[in-house]
């Protein structure tokens, strides 16, 4: 399988370079004119520095609160030429954990065809790709984007992306490394679904490549629609890979929509993952991974300030429903109704400037267990993106 990836890489890079050669040959024969002169002036800025971060205060009802520098990310980019660019995001989580969230090299073959390889975000749902705190409402990311889509979900891979301006379409297609069946002793399970399996490119093991693709359509004013698919298997260690239950198959599909019209905005997504061979996996690793994960949310927001203001004050309401035990029969485990969760989030996002937001919200957590008491939580925090 490794061979397949290598071949794919060679194939696309050859294609890329052949295109480049033709361009250069022709460019030298081009006549310069006024327009050409200004536009060919070197525009690449070399190094780009940016970042984003959020500091949160979570206060659950009847418990002690938590104050956390949840994440702080340094963005570093370097443009070697107009075609070749390196992008990396270095993340500090909870002050003390260090991750490289993204690190990839991208090569632009043309306006609508780019090749990129390295540690990249898996395009699924809204928040995994657009996770900067100024881009979503609520102090915390939606839980569908935590328990069903295990954000931040990034793995090493190679793929293509591009846009078609005529059709208002963006496409992405990648071959990624998958989740680990067992990740530093942690197994996949009912509470968090696939979350424990994220290898994040840290000495990650691979025996089966996974395929991921997403199409975004933004041709209707104010509306953006996304359709994503992820297909593959988890990765098993050499010594167990032939044993029954060493890995599970994953088919995940996601639909998302975002809409903005003047002061009103709304978004929603639906994610479903079907897992196969979970019965053998659960036996082998004594865990309770369901055979289906499913979740959705819908959110509406209204900006209380006039559009002419630079500041924005969004009041929003979100309902989420997600179940990491959406199906358990094929996994041959008992269904835990506590994993069938729903929550309401009502809050404010006060964008004090472009790129800086102060947030406050109240959340009600509930699940499908009989006699379960709804729990409340207050969240306060700020987020920045620059």
């Amino acid at each position: 399988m490794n061979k397949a990836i290598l071949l794919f890489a060679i194939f696309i890079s050859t294609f890329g370079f052949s295109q480049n050669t033709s361009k250069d040959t022709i460019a030298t024969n081009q006549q310069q004119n006024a327009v050409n002169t200004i536009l060919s002036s070197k525009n690449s800025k070399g190094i780009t520095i940016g970042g984003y971060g959020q500091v949160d205060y979570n206060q659950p009802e009847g418990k002690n609160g938590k104050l956390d520098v949840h994440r702080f990310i340094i963005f570093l980019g370097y443009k070697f030429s107009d075609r070749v660019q390196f992008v990396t995001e270095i993340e500090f989580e909870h002050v003390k954990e260090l991750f490289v969230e993204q690190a990839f090299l991208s090569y632009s073959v043309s306006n609508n065809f780019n090749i990129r390889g390295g540690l990249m975000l898996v395009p699924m749902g809204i928040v995994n790709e657009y996770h900067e705190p100024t881009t979503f409402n609520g102090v915390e990311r939606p839980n569908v984007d935590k328990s069903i889509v295990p954000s931040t979900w990034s793995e090493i891979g190679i793929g293509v992306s591009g846009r078609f301006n005529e059709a208002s379409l963006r496409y992405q297609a990648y071959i990624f490394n998958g989740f680990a069946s067992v990740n530093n002793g942690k197994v996949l399970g009912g509470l968090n679904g696939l979350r424990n399996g994220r290898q994040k490119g840290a000495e990650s093991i691979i025996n089966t490549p996974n395929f991921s693709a997403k199409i975004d359509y933004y041709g209707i004013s104010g509306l953006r629609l996304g359709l994503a698919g992820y297909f593959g298997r988890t990765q098993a260690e050499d010594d167990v890979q032939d044993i029954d239950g060493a890995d599970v198959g994953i088919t995940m599909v996601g639909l998302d929509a975002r809409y903005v019209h003047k002061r009103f905005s709304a978004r929603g997504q639906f994610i479903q993952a079907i897992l196969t061979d979970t019965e053998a996996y659960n036996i082998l690793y004594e865990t309770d991974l369901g055979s289906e994960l499913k979740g959705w949310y819908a959110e509406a927001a209204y900006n209380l300030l006039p559009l002419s203001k630079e500041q924005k004050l969004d009041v929003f309401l979100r309902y989420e429903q997600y179940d990491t035990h959406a199906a358990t029969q094929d996994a041959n485990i008992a269904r835990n109704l506590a994993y069938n969760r729903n929550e309401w989030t009502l809050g404010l996002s006060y964008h004090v400037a472009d790129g800086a937001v102060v947030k406050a919200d109240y959340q009600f957590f509930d699940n499908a267990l009989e006699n379960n008491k709804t729990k409340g939580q207050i969240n306060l925090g700020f987020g920045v993106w620059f």
Partner: protein
Amino acid sequence: MVLNSKIFFDMNFKFGLILFVSLITLSFGLHKDLNKKIDKEIRTTYNVETYSYNVITISQEVVKELTAKFDNNNLLKIHTKDELLGYAYIGKAPSKTDEFDYLILFDKDLIIMKSKILIYREDYGGEIGSKRWLKQFIGKTLTDELVYGDNIAAISGATISVKSMTLAINKLLQSIKILHNKNII
């Protein structure tokens, strides 16, 4: 109108020829065909097969008053042998981490006829290249004020570039208005 002294225009002076711009450059890749792109937009927007253009030069004093950037190379007067077709402006505006190049075509009454993103250099925000989205600028006049999210629709996932383009066109409209009032165009 003062002509620029680029090779093309020297020829214009010396031989008094009407310069038919036919920028035939086969090309691949990013900046491919920048000329070809501009040429194609001009021909399809004004619905002409051939046309001429002159670079409009603006004195430094006047340039200082303008919020949009003019470097005596990026504002063109487009005409045929016997009629004025309009004006073309080629500008740059910031995206999240880079800059993009855009083209605005005005008719002879200085109403926007076409807007196009010529080169977009990063992944984030490339949605503003959408033909559908860019249509919003068509018909805008020098007295129009563009407001992000109001008369210019937002695009989720491309906020920075959408705001940047909106601001750039606002500055351009204001600057063109000043140039028009000064009878420069």
